[in-house]
């Protein structure tokens, strides 16, 4: 009965979806970045690719990718103009999409050498004033930790790194090579590239979690669909509710620090 109900529901959902977003072939069109590990790449090696495959299986849908670099304006031009139907990972409070409930929560982390003299965990650590700190460059600005450092008078300490495409590992490599003393990096990126240096690095969640007046370093990540496409969003939610363990396993395999894990170290484990 239960399974019959579920099958019927699925059929209804698929009909709805087919009539609206997915077209007659029941394809699932995912917007993804073509060169942005660990999230996704064209060879489908990222954890978002893994999760998308799981989703397509669950929905018995054909998976197609719309490859597009995820810079500014991207949501409006692609998801917004119906060139694709969903994004596998977006901040759960991102206002430009209809989002599922979050399926993981990660944090910016300090990446330090395990044998470093100082391995900061807190932005208020006085040691930071004498350290060179790598930060991510996002578009025409730095990632949020740089703002927090700047506010503490440490503009001079900041070294910016591109963190997409080929350049992505460079911020982690810079810690290993002592080009910087520590780096503040979004968890999934840090965890994935730190695995290349087993035993050499520690990853420590940035404290405080929110820098007043309102600069958070932890973010909950959800799936997102075009605003108003609640049928598809609800269907995605069913998938997420059904497969939390498999999703968790995928994230873990890619070294994504998850807040529930209370991750304090990584790199080769």
């Amino acid at each position: 009965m239960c399974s019959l109900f579920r099958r019927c529901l699925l059929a209804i959902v698929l009909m709805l979806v087919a009539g609206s977003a997915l077209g007659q072939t029941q394809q699932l069109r995912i917007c993804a970045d073509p060169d942005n590990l660990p999230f996704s790449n064209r060879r489908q090696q990222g954890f978002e690719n893994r999760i998308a495959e799981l989703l397509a299986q669950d929905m018995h849908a054909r998976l197609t990718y719309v490859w597009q670099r995820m810079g500014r304006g991207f949501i409006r031009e692609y998801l917004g103009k119906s060139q694709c139907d969903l994004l596998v990972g977006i901040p759960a409070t991102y206002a430009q999409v209809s989002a599922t409930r979050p399926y993981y929560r990660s944090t910016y982390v300090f990446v330090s050498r395990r044998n470093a003299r100082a391995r900061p965990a807190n932005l208020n650590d006085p040691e930071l004033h004498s350290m060179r700190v790598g930060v991510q460059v996002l578009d025409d600005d730095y990632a949020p930790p740089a703002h927090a450092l700047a506010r503490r008078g440490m503009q001079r300490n900041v070294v910016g790194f591109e963190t997409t495409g080929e350049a992505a590992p460079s911020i982690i490599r810079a810690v290993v090579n002592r080009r910087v003393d520590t780096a503040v990096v979004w968890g999934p990126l840090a965890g994935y590239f730190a695995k290349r240096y087993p035993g050499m690095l520690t990853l420590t969640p940035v404290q405080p979690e929110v820098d007043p007046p309102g600069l958070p370093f932890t973010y909950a990540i959800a799936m997102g669909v075009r605003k108003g496409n609640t049928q598809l969003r609800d269907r995605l939610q069913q998938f997420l509710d059904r497969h939390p363990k498999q999703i968790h396993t995928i994230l873990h395999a890619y070294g994504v620090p998850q807040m529930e894990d209370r991750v304090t170290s990584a790199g080769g484990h």
Partner: protein
Amino acid sequence: MKSGFDLKSSTILLLSLLASTWGCSGSRSQQSTAQQAAEEKPSAAQAYQGKLEPDDGQWIRPAKDFASTRYSTLDQINSSNVKDLKPAFTFSTGQDRGHEAAPIVVNNTMYIITPWPNELYALDLTKPGAPIKWEYQPKPTPAAKGVACCDLVNRGVVYDNGKIFLNTLDVQTVAVDANTGRELWKVRLGDINKGESMTMAPLVVKGKVLVGNSGGEFGVRGWLTALDENTGKIAWRAYATGPDKDVLIGSRFKPFYAQDRGQDLGVKSWPPDAWQIGGGTVWGWISYDPETNLIFYGTANPGPWNAEERPGDNKWTSGIFARDADTGEAVWFYQWSPHDLFDYDGVNENILLDLPINGQTRKVLVHPDRNGYVYVLDRTNGEVLSASPFAYITTSTGVDLKTGLLQYVSEKKPITGSVVRNICPASPGAKDWTPSAFSPRTGLIYIPHNNLCQDEEDVSANYIAGTPYVGANVRMYPGPGGHGGEFTAWDPIHGKAAWVIKDRFPVWSGALATAGDVVFFGTMDGWFNAVDAHNGQQLWKFKAGSGVIGQPVSYKGPDGKQYVAVLSGVGGWSGAIVAGGLDSRDPTIALGFGNATRELPHYTTKGGMLYVFSLP
């Protein structure tokens, strides 16, 4: 900048401006352009006593003369007969980006440059319908499209000594034979891979072609470069940031105010090394004073956009340099917006006049700035004689004439993670690049400008390529009165408006003043307007095929008749509004923003067209 953007020139970006401007302005039926009657106040100004360059009826550079008056002495078209003005000929450019250039007229030939891909057309004015004489295609690399901050615009070419000089979006300056269109030389001056581009119109002074870069967002260091007009060889380059030797600051440098004196301020007013990516590009206008042999030009916003990461005055950005025209040596500098918080830039036009100020005739330059003040400076030494608000301002309370310092309002300072409302002017400024005109007959300056405010609100999660962050959502909207733009006749001596025409949209075209006491300007929704120079009364209007954001000019044709010419073709607007929203390294984004003009279907559509008008 951005971009223009300038995005930019520029650099925050605001998609919602378009939507909110229209949304807030009521129905289309009430609209319109200049037909809203000007506030009827008699002009308080008086006829100009100074001298202007002789006018031979040609129009050889976008600003008309070295003083940048954009004033034509032709008077066949006057306030009585302008109502009979009719199209004489038209010409499609075949391009659909923003057309911001001025047509150039010399030796009975008209030269127009299109936005990307910067095609140059020479039209033969001696033949019926002005057919193409030749065309030149510089073929800039398509990669440049991705780095332009504020749509793929070009603000015009310049003629000198038998040559036409043009800049391409991919940072090349080209000399072309004015008669044949043959390429004489072509030099690459910057690196598009670093986010540099070029959109400004060159100026030729004493055999040197002066050009500057665009792209003052992230990672670009601004410069002005002088090239030998015969060879393209670099004569000198003056950076806007860095050590004195790079900025060409030496023994002749005598800034008027104390805060601009000292060694290597282009390094010391920044966090270490930040000056290397500090912006201060030169994408606006250059004026030249033959008497003092000085050139004057503004520098754009500092980078990165987030001001918290660049404590200090960020010299020499968002200010004005006076330099020796031959050597490039800096003579003085004044900073309109020290430690620019709002992407106000400083690149707007400087009109060189000799005005009676407090009973004395002073050699001045008049500069309507993005920050909302019309500045009158002594152009011999950089002293601020007056700074009068021409728009609604909440970000500052005025300019201290003793110190020259802009008085910021601290509550309007953007802080990451916090909400700031009612920031006026918005980032495109009280006025963007749109050049003003001056009429010696009225003594008034005609200023096309904006009436925009912005909120930085909804501090909410955002992300780029997988990395989340908190971004202020900037929302722009019309300022007091609910209209997005104004065309203001300004009395520079008394520091007040003589009359104001309101328009639904930001007025994004240049202005043209004529001896017939007719002033011309265009609006975003495609009306090209003629108004009375004395009182702003609408005298004539013409609906162009697309929004008018170009620079109108006037010339005497081979038949002895006076003509008025302008390019229509909307687009730069959307680029400018969204300036900072563009990732200068991502070629796909510019396309996305170019498409923003699709949101204008009820008002205008894209497409470049030259219109030339005359009396029957």
